[in-house]
């Protein structure tokens, strides 16, 4: 393993360019398997960035490197202005991490968990108690604060976990798949909370597999696939990168479907043999639709139905992360 981060550069003053997270050329492999192969990204202060990708894309590894939990094999990164390899202590004082698995003690009460984090963050007993009370109230856990966390629902545990991350007023908050495994109502509640944090100016770096979540929460989306950044931009920009409109064709028979798919070639994004549908990309122009329909169905018998819809982030995602 080559380790190329030079730790000589131990500037103590944060860089003034306003980036909450900056990474270039991050690489990491485990036992010969390359997990990250050169990640570059930048997240301005006070913004929300979503790292979006399928399982195994390298999202968690990226978060672990940026939050100082593991070291990159190559590349460098600065978080809140400090080098994650050379200035760990400074970085750790300014960040909080909420991992995929709620890091809460089931045998302690919600309040005890919060107080403990407060004490470990250097608050005295009274301050830690006050902070715990504030956070319980803000996260709608006041009634449950005196109960052991083992009795909490999944959504409550996640909220407590997030509250524990906020005890210290972090400059940068890392959320690794904050809503994975939550029911829709708890997910909504989580979204509201993250939205509030963003509104207060906390820089939030989150990972997700859900396009809807990235679309809803993030100012900027970075799409990760097999250890590489395959696209980056706002939700609107990403949608624009692939044709904005989708034409959904329903064919009359399996033979007609095969012929149409053949004729469309690259323009066919999805071919569903069970539903007899083809989804094709086009630019929203009526003449193009007419031409396309004439091309694949000259005698007007193969296509039963067609519909036009806007591209969703799912379309973008599938297109970007496909082989």
């Amino acid at each position, binding site marked *: 393993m080559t380790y190329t981060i030079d730790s000589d550069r131990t500037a103590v003053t944060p860089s003034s360019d306003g980036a909450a997270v900056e990474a270039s050329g991050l690489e990491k492999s485990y036992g010969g398997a390359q997990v990250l192969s050169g990640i570059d990204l930048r997240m301005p202060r006070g913004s929300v960035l979503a790292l979006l990708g399928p399982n195994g894309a390298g999202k968690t590894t990226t978060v672990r490197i940026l939050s*100082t*939990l593991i070291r990159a094999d190559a590349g460098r990164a600065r978080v809140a202005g400090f080098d994650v390899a050379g200035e760990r202590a400074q970085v750790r*004082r300014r960040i909080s991490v909420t991992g995929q698995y709620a*890091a809460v003690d089931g*045998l302690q009460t919600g309040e*005890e968990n919060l107080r*403990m984090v407060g*004490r*470990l963050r250097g608050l005295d007993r009274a301050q830690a108690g006050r902070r715990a009370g504030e956070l319980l109230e803000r996260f709608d856990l006041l009634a449950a604060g005196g109960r052991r966390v083992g009795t909490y629902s999944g959504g409550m545990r996640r909220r407590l976990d997030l509250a524990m991350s906020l005890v210290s007023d972090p400059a940068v908050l890392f959320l690794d798949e904050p809503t994975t495994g939550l029911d829709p109502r708890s997910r909504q509640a989580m979204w509201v909370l993250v939205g509030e944090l963003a509104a207060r100016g906390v820089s939030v770096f989150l990972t997700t597999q859900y396009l809807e979540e990235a679309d809803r929460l993030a100012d900027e989306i970075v799409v990760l696939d097999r250890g590489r950044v395959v696209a980056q931009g706002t939700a609107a920009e990403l949608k624009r990168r692939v044709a904005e409109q989708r034409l959904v064709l329903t064919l009359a028979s399996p033979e007609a479907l095969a012929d149409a798919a053949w004729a469309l070639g690259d323009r066919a994004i999805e071919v569903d043999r069970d539903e007899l549908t083809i989804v094709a990309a086009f630019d929203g122009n009526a003449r193009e639709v007419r031409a396309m329909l004439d091309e694949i169905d000259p005698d007007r018998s193969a296509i039963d139905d067609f519909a036009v819809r806007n591209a969703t982030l799912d379309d973008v995602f599938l297109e970007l992360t496909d082989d």
Partner: protein
Amino acid sequence: MTEALILTARCLRLSRRQVDALMTSLLLPVLLMILFVELFGGAIEPGGGYVTYVVPGVLLLCAGFSSGLTAVAVCQDMTGGCIDRLRSMDVRGASLLSGHVAASVARNLASGVLVVAVALALGFHPHAAAVEWLEAAGVLLAFIVAISSLSATIGLVARSPEAANGFTFLIMFLPYASSAFVPVHTMPGWLQGFAGHQPITPITEALRGLLLGTRVGSNAWVAMAWCAGILVLSIVASGVLFARRAE
């Protein structure tokens, strides 16, 4: 230091609330004393003096069990999300481990007192003045700290809490192959070599000598040397193991 105290308080709270483990820690001393004295004692020493012989052995057996739980607790912290949160808060590994060891010592004090209380009720007649009691407590404390630290180190290595639990079993087996329950010279030759030179035997003999007012000899120093050795080894190993996680 504050960090270690906060985490000790946490570990103590968690141990107090782990009802099953707590019950076992408290029941075990009582049951073991009754088992050895009332069930085996009659056969081993028909005169009824076995209780006096066996007290150090039961003390070490209980300490071994209770310290072994440290491996499980550390492993739970390491394999759950807890360790990531602590590390991202810049909490040092040494603070977490010393919290676990301190909690283990506190658990052991409770069970040690219980062992002695039950022993006295069953007819244990120590011949020790306050100084010898203190010295005996010192040797036992050294054993508990050493074995808890070793246990914490095992907790760092174990892949799952279940695997860590296997270590408790191993520690609990050691006293049987020592002078804790029967004299080493009654064992077959091949076992005598092991039994005579493993740490439990000098520790047992030191405790026995101090509590009964018999000759302690070099046993106390050998016992302390073993404990110090195990402690130093554990501290070094856990430091290395902890640092390795940051790769």
